[in-house]
């Protein structure tokens, strides 16, 4: 349990320390250390859960089971590798004169603030606190989206703020209704917002209220997942903010919002006893998936391109969680991991690529492979992985989703296959000239640390070849928690 408190304490201390550090190189290193410490704490927590099973803190405020513990470890890991990349990257941006010292200080403080919000969303047992933390994540990142203060970035940040703010307010309404439903049940008045209590009494919760609550919760948290038609903020925020921000938004925030929805779904399923929540999620997921793959073809900005790819994958995961069978749930959990690792690796590479080419416009980025093979290969392999090619992990998880769909909803499989095909074409049409084209005049290699990318893609490759026993165990148990059955 100490590990969980440590995990929440480390970013708080990190925020306090970093708000005083002016030197950007130093701040980058400190940020990295704090994220390293958080990773250690999360691994400690993971070992705890592995040995002892679910942990509930004495005050009942924190609850860690096999579903969130792997997401915590994943969050800490992506947070660390992104911070390794972010230090030199932001120092370079400062040299270019894009950001000043004060704003860099804000950046690093809010980086830790965002990590704090993410850990809080994942560890808390209280649905209300989960909402507060989710809103906190928006507030922490909104000024980072507009970090460069260009008109475009201010616009993106405003859109992000308003859309996510209004969206997440719906989730609060859902939470109020949840509380309302829980208060009607005898014996849980005092702890009526605690997830463990709600889950225990799920069958006694009023189905009518719960189904209204779920619609609001899904729309609210769904805005943060980037589900169509609530996705408009996502490509803008990703493309105009600093690249490390895009990496953690795509790799962490979207996952954690989906986590919140799935937690709610577990309650609603217990109350309703039918597939209504699942159907809603399947519908939204499928729509997001199909719309995003079509939009991939229209993009002219490299970061927008990959943010649409994020929407596509989040849609796929929502869809898979919506199916709700053990196989589909397992696949969705697995896909959360592989997507988050791959996508953050891609955003890191894209950050270097756009620094190299001095632009984010796809048509101006050319000849990466010749100028700097590491970046070119990184982008190519990352894209191969995200498009779902074997032997990478994304292939394995997408394949599992397909199998699960084939089993329960065979008539939807062609749509999924078609979507994956269109996405593949869209990505490669854009990536191929960027990687292989002729070098534009005056394009020179830059200092780039490709280690985080290689680690991420290496893990994704390993996951595609075989899932380690402990991870498989977690997935199995989490699947059991969510769908009520073991997949095997």
């Amino acid at each position, binding site marked *: 349990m100490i590990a969980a408190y440590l995990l929440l304490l480390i970013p708080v201390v990190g925020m306090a320390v970093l708000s005083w550090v002016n030197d950007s190189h130093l701040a980058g290193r400190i940020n990295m250390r704090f994220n390293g410490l958080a990773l250690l704490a999360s691994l400690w927590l993971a070992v705890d859960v592995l040995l002892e099973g679910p942990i509930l803190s004495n005050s009942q405020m924190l609850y860690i089971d096999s579903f969130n513990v792997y997401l915590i470890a994943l969050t800490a890991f992506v947070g660390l590798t992104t911070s390794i990349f972010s230090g030199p990257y932001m120092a370079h941006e400062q040299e270019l004169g894009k950001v000043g010292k004060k704003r860099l200080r804000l950046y690093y403080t809010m980086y830790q603030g965002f990590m704090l919000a993410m850990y809080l969303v994942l560890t808390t047992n209280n649905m209300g606190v989960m909402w507060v933390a989710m809103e906190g994540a928006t507030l922490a990142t909104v000024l980072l989206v507009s970090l460069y203060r260009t008109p475009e970035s201010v616009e993106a940040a405003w859109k992000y703020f308003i859309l996510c703010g209004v969206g997440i307010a719906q989730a609060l309404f859902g939470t*109020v209704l949840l509380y309302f439903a829980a208060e009607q049940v005898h014996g849980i008045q005092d702890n009526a917002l605690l997830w463990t209590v709600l889950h225990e009494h799920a069958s006694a919760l009023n189905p009518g209220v719960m189904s209204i609550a779920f619609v609001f919760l899904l729309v609210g948290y769904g805005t943060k997942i980037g589900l169509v038609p609530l996705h408009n903020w996502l490509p803008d925020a990703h493309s105009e903010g600093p690249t490390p921000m895009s990496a953690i938004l795509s790799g962490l925030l979207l996952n954690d919002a989906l986590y919140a929805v799935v937690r709610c779904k577990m309650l609603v399923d217990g109350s309703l006893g039918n597939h209504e929540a699942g159907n809603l999620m399947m519908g939204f997921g499928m729509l997001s998936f199909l719309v995003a793959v079509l939009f991939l073809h229209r993009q002219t900005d490299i970061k927008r391109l990959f943010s649409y790819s994020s929407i596509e994958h989040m849609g796929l995961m929502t869809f898979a969680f919506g199916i709700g069978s053990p196989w589909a749930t397992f696949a969705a959990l697995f896909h959360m991991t592989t997507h988050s690792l791959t996508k953050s690796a891609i955003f890191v590479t894209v950050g270097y690529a756009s620094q190299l080419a001095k632009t984010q416009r796809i048509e101006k980025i050319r000849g990466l492979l010749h100028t700097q093979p590491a970046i070119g290969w990184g982008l190519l392999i990352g894209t191969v992985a995200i498009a779902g090619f074997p032997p990478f992990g994304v292939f394995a998880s997408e394949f599992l989703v397909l199998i699960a769909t084939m089993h329960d909803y065979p008539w939807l499989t062609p749509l999924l296959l078609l979507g994956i095909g269109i996405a593949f074409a869209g990505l490669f049409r854009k990536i191929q000239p960027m990687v292989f084209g002729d070098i534009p005049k005056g394009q020179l290699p830059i200092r780039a640390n490709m280690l985080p990318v290689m680690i991420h893609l290496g893990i994704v490759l390993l996951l595609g070849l075989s899932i380690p026993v402990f991870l498989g165990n977690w997935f199995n148990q989490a699947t059991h928690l969510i769908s009520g059955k073991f997949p095997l």
Partner: protein
Amino acid sequence: MEITQLSHYQQAILLLAALIALTSFLMLGQSRLLRLVFIFAVQGILLSITTALAADVLDSPHLYISALLTLSLKGIFIPIMLQRLVINMGLHRDMETLKNPARIMMAGTGLMVFSYYVCLPIIKLSPLITLNTIAISMAVVLLGMLLMITRRQAVAHVVGFMSIENGLFFAAVVSTYGMPMVVELGIAFDVLVAAVLFGVFFFHIRSSIDSLDVDQLNRLSEVEK
């Protein structure tokens, strides 16, 4: 159920609910920013009165803290901040022409009916009063959204946003006698930070597009220009 059968507390809550809904409609039709902010403050004060009333009648002291928080944030701090921003930026003389005010009002009425319709399943669960209050709070949320859709001024958007939060608070206070303290403090903190950030954003937006008309924030789109 007849209204006379209700207790005085319930009647008072119904009255307050009606007044809060009325302020939402007033905001919808108000084209001057300063008055918009004023009505928003009135709504915040009504909300804190509701909370204090609930605290008194239901004998739950933690709601007093909540009432105080609401009063100081929604009734005083945020309106004053917005008012000063509006005056400092010289926006108080501008009048925003509302296109089709009648149609907007009709849409608002429609949303109200819709809210009652959606909340019907709850009627089976608890007395008349809860249906009314939950339906009205949902209507306030939706009317806040409508306000945001129909306006172009960033300040009006913030007022709409905050009025959505008012609706949520009202639901929490009346239907469930407030959320647990931790959650309420957390929400109040979020609202405070959001209000400050909005203030910061006004300056960013103005320095980037030289006005606060968010219709001019149109550089990012899917269509190539």
